[in-house]
């Protein structure tokens, strides 16, 4: 069982992802689907960020004054990995943009059909 304990961060975020994924495909209210999409994407972002950590008291990826002026050397194993953070900044922005467009489409649907329940909309469309 020790591989579960060693990688508990991955497991937690996978459970969160699956909660969001289930909401996205199984609920019939359109707003709940959008919220599920948001949970799913946020869990992916947290999953990536959690891979950047280094045990043993590693610090943030910002140089202190002494290190910046060259007085003190930078040890790679004491500073956490900055690359996943950068990728996830872009992914957060993409997530917000997709959420905005999905909600705009929902407003458009509401103005036309006056309901936000998928089954009723499908019945009206037939």
């Amino acid at each position, binding site marked *: 069982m020790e591989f579960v304990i060693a990688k508990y961060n991955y497991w937690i975020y*996978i459970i969160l992802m*699956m909660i969001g994924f289930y909401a996205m*495909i199984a609920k019939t209210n359109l707003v709940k689907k959008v919220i599920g999409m948001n949970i799913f994407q946020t869990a992916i972002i947290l999953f990536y960020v959690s891979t950047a950590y280094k045990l043993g008291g590693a610090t943030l990826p*910002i140089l202190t004054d002494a290190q910046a002026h060259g007085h003190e050397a*930078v040890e790679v194993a004491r500073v956490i990995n900055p*690359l996943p953070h950068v990728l996830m900044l872009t992914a957060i922005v993409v997530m917000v943009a997709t959420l905005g467009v999905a909600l705009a489409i929902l407003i458009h649907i509401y103005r036309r059909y006056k309901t936000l329940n998928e089954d009723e909309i499908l019945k009206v469309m037939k």
Partner: protein
Amino acid sequence: MKFLSFLITLLTGAVLVYGTIDMPAYGDPDSPASRHVSPRYIEKTEEETATPNMVTSVLADYRGYDTMGETTVIFTAGISCIFLLRRRKK
């Protein structure tokens, strides 16, 4: 229908967990992700980009093209919202 969705969700979660078996443990400083590309970002950020903040230097200098793509995504979302929601005042 909901039972089928639940099954698909469980299957996807199981495949994801199966994939984590071979991954490096949490916080391992020797993992491939922290040995291949990142050391150059950490060590050379002051001399190559004159920025003490490593995340900024990667975001704006080494990978600045991704940042341009991200601002384009925001612009596209804004134009999409105007396109979909604007109504002519009759």
